[in-house]
């Protein structure tokens, strides 16, 4: 394998970044779309089927002909797709109102904090261990060089993820404060308390995989949880998985824990005063955070990029025909499928259950989740001592 020069490795890293950013910005709008459609079908309606502007203007142009898709079985599901483009156009073109009494600098910096911390987390997420693909020899400039499955292979990856993710809380708290308005203030206060509380059980529940895999590196953890344990990490860590997922819902402000933006109580919570693309950043950050939580859950508890649980893989491999043998290898697609499944769970839960009250949210965290997470950690330690 050739050793890359400095400029070559910079280009390779940029390509990796591009891949991850493309993944994030494909998955996130599709999650928004899926939220509309899945929620729609859960509630016996169609979800979005058009851009609501008739036949005039840019959106009208996108809308034109879309209704015909309704007659085609599979395509009919995707009729609402132009709505996503219209949404983004609307967010970008909308007037950006800053309240007169707002703290302008903080008001400006808050959405950026939320957004940046959400995206940067992905640096430490490894989609597939080792090499994702190698450039062919004839490729100009970077020919023959490998592209790894994650941007940064940090040996304290989990620490990085938790650390950066918690910076996102500042975005919300500062947004609530800087708006200088009452409902956002309440929303910001709620989120400060809620997200700080839920970070504790979240971190403890993630300590269990750390104990089991004896590593903090995302790729190593994911591999040891998936391959080293029977049936991925899910069997010894089912409690940890549930705790983690619950805390993940709370950290991303999703129902049943959407206190900071509880629509029916606080109008829109911390982002009441935001409009245009600043609001868009909060909106995107929420969905990117969902993807991050889903990626961690998939990586640590659902076997990451491995398709079959350990044990089954060995039994099945001889019978897989040649072209299917890559089913036995770790692959980024399996990782993506698992992420999408957890994103679906988010929407599913949202369509099913009501919202907790603020004080109940806190009692769930402190009275139930933290003790349970500690017990789970003890369990993992015992497994580590005697089984692995």
């Amino acid at each position, binding site marked *: 394998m050739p050793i890359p020069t400095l400029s070559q490795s910079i280009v390779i890293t940029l390509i990796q970044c591009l891949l991850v950013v493309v993944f994030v910005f494909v998955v996130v709008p599709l999650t928004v779309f899926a939220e509309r459609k899945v*929620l729609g079908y859960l*509630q016996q309606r169609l979800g979005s089927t058009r851009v609501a502007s008739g036949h005039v203007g840019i959106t009208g142009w996108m809308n034109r002909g879309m209704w015909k898709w309704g007659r085609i079985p599979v395509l009919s599901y995707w009729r609402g797709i132009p709505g996503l483009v219209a949404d983004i156009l609307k967010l970008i073109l909308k007037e950006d109102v800053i309240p007169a009494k707002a703290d302008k600098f903080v008001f400006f910096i808050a959405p950026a904090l939320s957004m940046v911390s959400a995206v940067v987390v992905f640096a430490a997420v490894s989609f597939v261990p080792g090499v994702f693909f190698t450039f062919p020899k004839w490729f100009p400039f970077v020919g023959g060089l490998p592209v790894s499955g994650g941007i940064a292979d940090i040996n304290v990856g989990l620490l990085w993820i938790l650390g950066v993710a918690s910076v996102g809380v500042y975005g919300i708290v500062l947004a609530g404060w800087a708006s200088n308005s009452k409902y956002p203030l309440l929303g910001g206060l709620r989120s400060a308390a809620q997200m700080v509380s839920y970070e504790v059980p979240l971190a403890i529940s993630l300590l269990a995989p750390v104990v089991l895999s004896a590593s903090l590196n995302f790729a190593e953890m994911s591999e040891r949880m998936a391959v080293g344990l029977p049936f991925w990490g899910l069997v010894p860590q089912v409690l940890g998985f549930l705790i983690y997922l619950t805390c993940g819902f709370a950290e991303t402000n999703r129902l*049943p824990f959407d206190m900071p933006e509880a629509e*029916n109580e*606080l109008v829109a919570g911390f982002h009441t005063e935001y409009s245009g693309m600043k609001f868009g950043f909060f909106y995107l950050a929420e969905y990117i955070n969902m993807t991050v939580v889903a990626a961690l859950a998939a990586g640590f508890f659902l076997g990451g990029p491995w398709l079959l649980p350990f044990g089954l893989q060995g039994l099945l491999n001889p019978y897989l025909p040649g072209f299917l043998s890559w089913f036995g290898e770790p692959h980024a697609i399996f990782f993506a499928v698992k992420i999408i499944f957890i994103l679906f769970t988010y929407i599913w839960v949202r369509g099913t*259950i009501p919202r*907790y*009250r603020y004080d*109940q949210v806190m009692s769930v965290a402190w009275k139930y989740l933290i003790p349970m997470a500690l017990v789970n950690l003890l369990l993992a330690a015992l497994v580590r001592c005697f089984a692995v």
Partner: protein
Amino acid sequence: MFKNEEMEVNLGPQHPSTHGVLRVKLRLDGETITHCRPMIGYLHRGVEKICENQTFFQGQVWTDRMDYCSAVANNLGWAEANEKLFGITVPRRAQYIRTMLNEFNRLASHLIWLATHALDIGAMTVFLYAFREREDILDMNEAFCGSRLTTTAFRIGGLREDLPPGFEKLVTKFLAKFPSCLEEYENLLSENRIWKKRTVGVAKLSAEDAIALGVTGPVLRAAGVPYDIRKAFPYAAYAEMDFEVPTKTEADTYARYLVRMEEMRQSARIIQQCMDGMPEGPVMAKLPKILRAEVNEVYHATEAPKGEIGYYLVGEKGSGNPYRFHVRAPGFINLQALPKMAEGGLIADIVAAIGTLDIVLGEIDR
């Protein structure tokens, strides 16, 4: 810098869960409500005064626009109050049809209550499920009188027209599927831990307080007082119907939820009985072209979905319109209980309290 201050917040008049244009002045200590005063009047149109300048026949159109979620029940009260004023006897078939439509309307109103109450608490799927059934009821309204929401369903003296052909089939179809729909809502809510946490023991209103404040309807019955005008002072064809008045003693939001769910079952029972025992005959009494009142006053109360709706009418000799008209609107009087229910609770509880009172601002402000 560290001042210990209470924060004043206006909940409404533009707020997602104030059911229209209610404004509640809140004083908050953190998230706890220390002071709560509902402010009303944003939807005031002067319905009562307008009705005094209209003939007795025309007035009914305005009753639609009070509680627009239960227009039929309002129409029934108005028609019966006028019939009492003029001493008109309504044919039996008309009474039955009125009773049936009134119960359908109770279902529609309770479904709206369930939908919005659940949405306020965060269960958004129930909202759309409930609206699905309400749609069928509105379709029946449309089949009967041509409009869906503001029905003007009845006439003084009976009905304008008999049931349309095929109406029976619609009713049978609805009644066949409705119990399973109710089960669907209850599966999502009744035993849901979060729903119970949000409603059990929340926004309590004891029977004494409820009576002292004049609260009626399901809110009163959930406090253990079995007062239902359909039983206490039967009107329309309710004397001939066999139904129960569900009560609970817990007097909290969850009890009100259970009471209203059971009321829906009873309403379905009444509709079934109306269909089975529907008498034949005319649907309109003989009336003069213009009703001219004697000097007379009348108060007629009926059980609207939200509580006792009373119509107070004063006639003037020889005049074609009422001399004085006043409505005892259940929402208006029930709303008085809001401070009692919400003070001391959290800000999320006032949303539950507004939902459980089942208010419609069109009726409160009139």
